[in-house]
């Protein structure tokens, strides 16, 4: 066994740290907090020009063929610096899907600019009446010659206001079981009939509802077979689960420890308080396990496997423990805890307060904790399919 990521990964990590030092500053983080848009074009373009949006893709795509351990180093360092990266995440889900099931023309058209950082994608899966039961989507796509006409509504189309396209799941057949009547499309967000309405969230992030009224797109923007959308979704969801690096909780811990060392309370450094030490030490345990789960996903990928249960355990653990950490660390800050980012005297610049508001969504998006537990119970433990 070897728990080190290795010299290649370490060397790349140094490069990423230098990049972060050059491109990430407080202004950027404040901008993201102020707008709630977890995407920054300056960083995105800078990452694109480095070839780091899809750094792990092979050289024939103009990428660098970085191995999973190098990718882990990249993700770790961007996360620890607090770089908003929802745009990269969405775009890579779509890019990975196109790479596996897209037509040659789609690959030629979309992949080079997306990987260069010219534009980003949004994801259009959820609807008012379908979240975890994503296959119950009602948004309709109706064939009209060489075109499709789309009508419906999507919830939580995060970054739709910054993205060029939405990767849209639509119903193309109502006469078959729900999984068999879906088709995936790439829909330009500037097409006539698309309306974007902002949604403001507990964690301060902006997301959107998107409305589609007689939106016409050519058949060339269909991804996969007609009524084969579920197969495409399965590919896409594989790339949504897991995540292979450190999480928000690691940054939260790092910043809080730095604050506790530097801050005096009642004439003593905060870090000397046994109640503070207990919370920070317990969070360190949870984070070490989150790291091991993340790195295990990288290891499975590096060995040529597809992380299934391993990815679910990682997602479940980090999301649940991030909530626990935010709550415990906020308790530890006592009556200063509620002070928000920007408030005078806010400990850790309000990061703990902000994380407490943000953490609940992590148990929902990317497959809810309940979905992950079902996967672990059924695929991992071989328990019978539960009633759902």
């Amino acid at each position, binding site marked *: *066994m*070897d*728990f*080190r*990521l*290795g010299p290649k990964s370490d060397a790349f990590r140094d490069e990423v740290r230098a990049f972060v030092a050059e491109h990430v500053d407080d202004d950027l983080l404040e901008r993201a907090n102020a707008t709630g848009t977890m995407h920054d074009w300056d960083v995105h373009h800078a990452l694109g020009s480095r070839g780091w949006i899809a750094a792990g893709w092979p050289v024939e795509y103009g990428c660098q063929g970085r191995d999973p*351990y190098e990718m882990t180093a990249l993700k770790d360092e961007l996360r620890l610096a607090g770089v908003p990266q929802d745009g990269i995440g969405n775009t890579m889900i779509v890019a990975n899907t196109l790479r596996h099931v897209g037509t040659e023309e789609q690959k030629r058209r979309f992949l080079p600019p997306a990987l260069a950082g010219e534009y980003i994608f949004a994801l259009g899966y959820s609807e008012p009446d379908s979240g975890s039961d994503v296959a119950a989507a009602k948004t309709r796509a109706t064939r009209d010659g060489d075109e499709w006409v789309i009508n419906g509504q999507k919830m939580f189309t995060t970054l739709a206001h910054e993205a060029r396209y939405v990767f849209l799941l639509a119903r193309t057949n109502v006469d078959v079981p729900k999984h068999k009547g879906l088709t995936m499309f790439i829909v330009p967000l500037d097409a006539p009939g698309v309306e974007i309405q902002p949604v403001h969230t507990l964690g301060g992030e902006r997301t959107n509802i998107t409305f589609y009224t007689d939106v016409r797109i050519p058949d060339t923007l269909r991804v996969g077979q007609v009524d084969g959308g579920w197969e495409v979704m399965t590919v896409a969801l594989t790339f949504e689960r897991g995540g292979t690096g450190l999480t928000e909780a690691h940054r939260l811990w790092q910043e809080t*420890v730095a604050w506790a*060392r530097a801050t005096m309370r009642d004439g003593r450094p905060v*870090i*000397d308080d*046994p109640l503070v*030490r*207990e919370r*920070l*030490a*317990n969070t*360190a*345990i949870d984070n*070490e*396990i989150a790291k*091991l*789960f993340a*790195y*295990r996903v*990288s*290891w499975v990928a*590096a060995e040529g496997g597809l992380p299934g249960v391993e990815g679910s*355990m990682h997602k*479940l*653990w980090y999301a649940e423990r991030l909530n626990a950490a935010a709550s415990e660390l906020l308790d530890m800050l006592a009556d200063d805890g509620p002070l928000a980012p920007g408030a005078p005297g806010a400990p850790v610049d309000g990061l703990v307060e902000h994380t407490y508001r943000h953490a609940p969504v992590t148990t929902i998006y990317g497959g809810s904790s*309940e979905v*992950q*537990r*079902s996967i*672990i*119970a*059924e695929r*991992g*433990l*071989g*328990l*019978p*399919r*539960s*009633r*759902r």
Partner: protein
Amino acid sequence: MDLALSDDQERLVSVLQTFFAKESPPDRVRDAEPLGFDPELWSKFAELGGPGIGPGAAVLDLELICEPFGAALAPLPLVDVLVCARLLEAAGADGADVLRAATGTPPLVATIALHPGVDGVVRRVPAGAVADIVVGLDGDELVAVTAPPDHRSPPNLGATPMADRSLRGSRRVLATGWRATELAARAADEWRILTAGALVGLAGAALDIGVAYAKSRHQFGVPIGSFQSIARDLADAATAVDGARLLAREAAWAADEAPADLAALASMAFLFAGRTAQQAAGTALHVHGGYGYMLEYDIQLYYRRAKAWTLAAGDPRRGVQHLADALFGPVEGAR
């Protein structure tokens, strides 16, 4: 990075699994209560190599041995004798005679006290009731005391052979001053790691029992494992068991490969393995419904030991403070 075991390690684990399955089935575990020591198992263990396999071995290999040991709840002070033999070896020439006795044919049972002596007495020594040799800190001296055990332990939750022992009398001083403290600290870290391994084994075995029961037990016409609230608890326990196993192995690996991280990782691994063992055994017991409360079902054996093995090192919340010292440095002016 490589999270797979080597071929040699796979063989090692497989040999130990077979050994404990044969020599320590649940009936033998029950028969060894309340003392928690099976002399025949000790002889068989001695034939397999005994405490002598400790010195010179990679800590990771020893941790891997402790997983099947814990899974079988084997009535054998495996962790204590392995760690003690390594400590005696590390003590060098001053520990050579004692080490020979502890690894001879047949070997004497040599254990370590996890807390310093007070007025020459070490309390609740994990294998104190069966140990011929006890190693512990007496003031600024690390000493090895040889004295016959009385094979009696106070009735206790985990049926462990714990007992108070004296560090005075026929004793050998192994080290003094900072060297004594350093040796004892290293041994305590290794004890935490190997006990974490044993607790991971216990947790995994308890989970397996709970999962098997949830698949076979029917209520309302279906297996109870198809109920979401049952599946949820088992999935949470399974996640914790995987995490605890990765962490215990990482700590064991660090003992030889990344010593700067050893103290923190050993504490983390031990604390989390203890919590996980309690979670897994508690969940599995609960899944059994009323049957889990009957002594006849094996799950109670796991439930009791999960807590008892954890408490051998003291109040877990003090353990968290110990971890904080490793992470942030000790608090100035604190004791």
